[in-house]
């Protein structure tokens, strides 16, 4: 039994499991920030009264949403980096990391846009009519009446998107971010196939521990903040 734990200790000294999870958390964090900004712009475009902006926003969402994330990440490496020599950071690893962040952000922005739009759709038309009826101009109506309710309605779908983004950050493996969790786990089980189940279980448990709190918090927040109708 002592040998077993000694072997495990050695395995975990050799492979940086915590660092791998930290990489995925960082990927998720930066991609989430960019996706939130881009997705908000797209959502504004899709709900604007200007037809050409609506068209551009809808086109982006329909194209990106239906493209596999793997294709986007591989595109970032094979085309954006290899072909066009776009370098986002001096170091090799930093560069792959940032390319993966951009790829993840491009993909998830489409879902952020849909989440925000579905939040706007939870606001009944009567709210806007009432705002206009008491004389609020467009910006005041949006700021005081519609957007606060829309934001509350979009918390649950945004939380779902964040969970999906965290799990999808493993796809950075396709973009040469070889020190993230999926690639690290693969190396470990190929190095020590006799500990196959245990290694998988540790990584899987790591994701369960990360994902379930996000789900609990966003469900709680959206229940608490939801406009009761």
């Amino acid at each position: 039994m002592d040998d077993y734990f000694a072997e495990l200790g050695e395995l975990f000294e050799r492979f940086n499991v915590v660092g791998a999870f930290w990489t995925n958390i960082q990927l998720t964090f930066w991609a989430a920030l960019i996706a939130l900004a881009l997705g908000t712009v797209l959502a504004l475009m899709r709900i604007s009264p200007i037809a050409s902006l609506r068209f551009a926003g809808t086109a982006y969402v329909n194209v990106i949403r239906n493209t596999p994330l793997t294709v986007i990440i591989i595109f970032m490496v094979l085309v954006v980096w290899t072909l066009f020599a776009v370098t986002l950071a001096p170091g090799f690893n930093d560069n792959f990391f940032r390319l993966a962040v951009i790829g993840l952000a491009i993909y998830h922005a489409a879902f952020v846009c849909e989440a925000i739009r579905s939040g706007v759709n939870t606001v009944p038309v009567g709210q806007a009519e009432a705002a206009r009826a008491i004389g609020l101009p467009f910006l005041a109506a949006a700021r005081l009446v519609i957007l606060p309710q829309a934001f509350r309605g979009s918390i649950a779908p945004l939380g779902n998107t964040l969970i999906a983004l965290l799990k999808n950050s493993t796809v950075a493996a396709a973009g040469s971010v070889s020190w993230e969790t999926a690639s690290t786990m693969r190396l470990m089980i190929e190095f020590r196939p006799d500990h196959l189940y245990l290694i998988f279980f540790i990584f899987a448990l790591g994701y369960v521990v990360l994902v379930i709190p996000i789900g609990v918090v966003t469900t709680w927040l959206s229940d608490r903040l939801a406009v009761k109708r």
Partner: protein
Amino acid sequence: MSSVLFDSPGPRGRRLVMFGNVASGVVVAGVVVFVLVVLAQQGQLDPALWVAALDGRAWQFYYLPGLQNTLRAAAFATVGAVAFGVLFGVGRLSLNPLVRVLSGVVVEFFRAVPVLLMMFFLWVFFSRQLTWVPDRPYAAVVVALVLYNGSVIAELVRSGVRNLPRGQSEAALAVGLTGAQSLRSVLLPQALVAMLPAVISQLVVVLKDSALGTLIAYPELLRATQILASGEQNPLQALTVAALVFIVLNWLLSVLAHRLSLTLSSRTSGKTVEGVGIGNPVAAPVVPEPH
């Protein structure tokens, strides 16, 4: 156009919208022109590169065999995921607390673990432990997709039954059906019809995630495209074609899901809502709740 944000515009509003329309049209056109200019500068508009990505040889030896493998994996994964989902979804609604908790643990576990992690694990698992499995990358792709999407569908079954109007189960109990009978002959049939659009939307996720198979050397569409691109030195063109194939297939599925969500609503008392196509079902509580 009138929406929650905007009233139908008057004459001044219409002029503003017209101006905005032209201005943003110019911006969008400018972006397109910029992209084309960059592509031309890099020599990526060279017809030879595009012909090599689009000719009969590319389709016959790369895209179509790849697409066949993609569809084969997606089809088997879908059948398996629906079976898995109905089984564990009903398990989560079971009156037996042990079955309920076990199904809940299985579903929440596979919903939280990234598909790629499962694919890598299953690939090594099949190669080391179940060496009699003939096509191991294929088996790993299908099983990983079944476990993940099956758990999502299980959640759809559960939330589908939950979201039925309370009167349905009350009426079933009032005419003398037991709890299990009312679930089987009143609630489940309606929930299954109501969730059909969301299941079709989940097919989009299955199809997209099947592209992860390229990382374990399963010869699906993306892998075939990469091989073509490394031979012809045209990754931009080949990946564009592959992405378009995925986009068209997934878009058709989304249209079907949307149509079904409209036409099926008269056949069930549940809400027929299509999914968003990213994997997590809409508004299903993550914490297990008492029945």
